[in-house]
């Protein structure tokens, strides 16, 4: 079956045409006075998106750093993410709501310290022993994280007309990230048993963005606002269905599992 998602991704073309969503590209002042729930969503997205260099670090410490095709993508990806983060920050500032310190509870702070100081060392050693298969798992995780956040922007635009323009401008940006991750995941999973095994393990343990640091309680209101209504349920199921189409991941439903975690804890 031919799948539009499976078209080859042209990295050379991508790096030549970054989508820069700068604060000046948006009438930021028109977003002033957002209600508290919406603002919390924007803050959540900002927190998730601005972990640009954390993600880069985690990827580059593994054999992924030798994959020049992936690093060329990440180079432009980081640039796009930088401007997106600045724009989200400008929206928060227009609403007088900016807390430069990450909202982390005590466990979250410990985890972040661990992730910044200790984990990189362990991961550098371990993943380099594992070898190239790790790349397959990382691009699959990249796809899933991006897919969930991408839907978050779409929902945000639907919920708050004043953020519809922002959401619309984020759309093509995220669509290209998804296309890259998808093509890479598909071909790498296809090519390697070890890659499929690592990806399976990673996807089965997948957590909702930011839950590791902020905890479920802090993220729950955002999840309820963005993802809890009936119409969104089918879009979430579609993400799981896409995951299941990837080689070796047929019976996994990471999104459903993660949402279940919010309901029971």
């Amino acid at each position, binding site marked *: 079956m031919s799948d539009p998602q499976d078209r080859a991704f042209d990295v050379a073309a991508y790096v030549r045409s970054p989508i820069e969503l700068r604060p000046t590209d948006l009438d930021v002042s028109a977003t002033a006075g957002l209600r508290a729930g919406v603002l919390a969503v924007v803050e959540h997205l900002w927190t998730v998106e601005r972990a640009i260099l954390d993600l880069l670090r985690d990827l580059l410490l593994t054999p992924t750093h030798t994959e020049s095709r992936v690093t060329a993508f990440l180079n432009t990806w980081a640039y796009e993410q930088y401007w997106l983060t600045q724009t989200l920050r400008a929206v928060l500032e227009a609403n007088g709501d900016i807390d*430069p310190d990450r909202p982390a509870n005590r466990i979250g702070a410990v985890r972040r310290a661990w992730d910044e100081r200790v984990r*990189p060392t362990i991961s550098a050693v371990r993943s380099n022993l594992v070898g190239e298969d790790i790349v397959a798992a990382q691009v699959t995780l990249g796809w899933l994280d991006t897919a969930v956040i991408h839907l978050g922007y779409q929902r945000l635009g639907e919920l708050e007309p004043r953020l519809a323009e922002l959401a619309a401008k984020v759309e093509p940006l995220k669509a290209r990230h998804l296309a890259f991750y998808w093509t890479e995941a598909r071909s790498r999973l296809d090519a390697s048993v070890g890659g499929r095994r690592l990806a399976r393990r990673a996807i089965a343990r997948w957590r909702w963005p930011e839950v590791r640091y902020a905890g479920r309680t802090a993220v729950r209101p955002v999840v309820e606002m963005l993802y809890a209504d009936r119409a969104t349920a089918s879009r979430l199921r579609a993400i799981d269905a896409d995951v299941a189409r990837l080689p070796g991941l047929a019976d996994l439903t990471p999104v459903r599992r993660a949402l279940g975690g919010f309901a029971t804890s």
Partner: protein
Amino acid sequence: MAFDIDRFTRDSTRVGWDDLDLEAFRGDPLPPESLRTLRYMCDVEYHTVCYLRDMLVTPSRRDHEVDAFMTMWNREEFWHGEALAYVLSLHGVSVDYDELKAKRVKLGWRDKMKPVTQSVLSTVVGKDYIAVHMIWGAVNEWSAAAAYKRMGALEGHPSLEVLLKRIAAQEARHVAFYATQARARLEGNPKAQRLARLALSNAWQPVGSGIATDEEVTHVMNHLFSGPEGRKEIDAIDAHVARLPGMEGLTIVGDALDARGIAA
């Protein structure tokens, strides 16, 4: 000199060459020794992402300014690599993703363990490590800017000279960032000064030493910096370094050239 990070990020752009007549190389190619140097420069630029990796595990990056800078710096350097790869391609030298990958893989365990060493070292040293990272970056960017300037002057090819000037101008902005950071972190901090001095005088090697063979490094240094004109540039870098707090009397770049037997 203060460094305005908002202005830097706002104005950061990829280096362009579409308006330059580089096609002329097809009929009037660069000599082999220049291509060899250009290839070295191209590899170093593309390798920036690995330098970035080594830095991301240190405490340098928990600072908004440093984070913003590194994102833009990484992209600008990548495009220097693309620009040089284009010039090389006009000479039938191809630098593609597969080839870059093969090179990175070949670096082996020593390269893979670099971030680990950096991480451990920076944890032991603590915050003063950032000063070392910054002064190290400054020396490397000064060297890069000087190398492009020399290459442009040596070749005397008008379009290439414009391209290399554009690249050097971006490197000069990187210098401004690193030097401003280094100065601020070294000033009034004797421990950081001692550490930086120790690191520079014992461990600094010309940019690219970690990824190219000794033979290549010596070729490039000879090609670009031998003779009085070349040495003038090197001395200027050493003078810049010596003006930073606690660095009086250091001549690390000149020393590195002497050690390789590059004639002044």
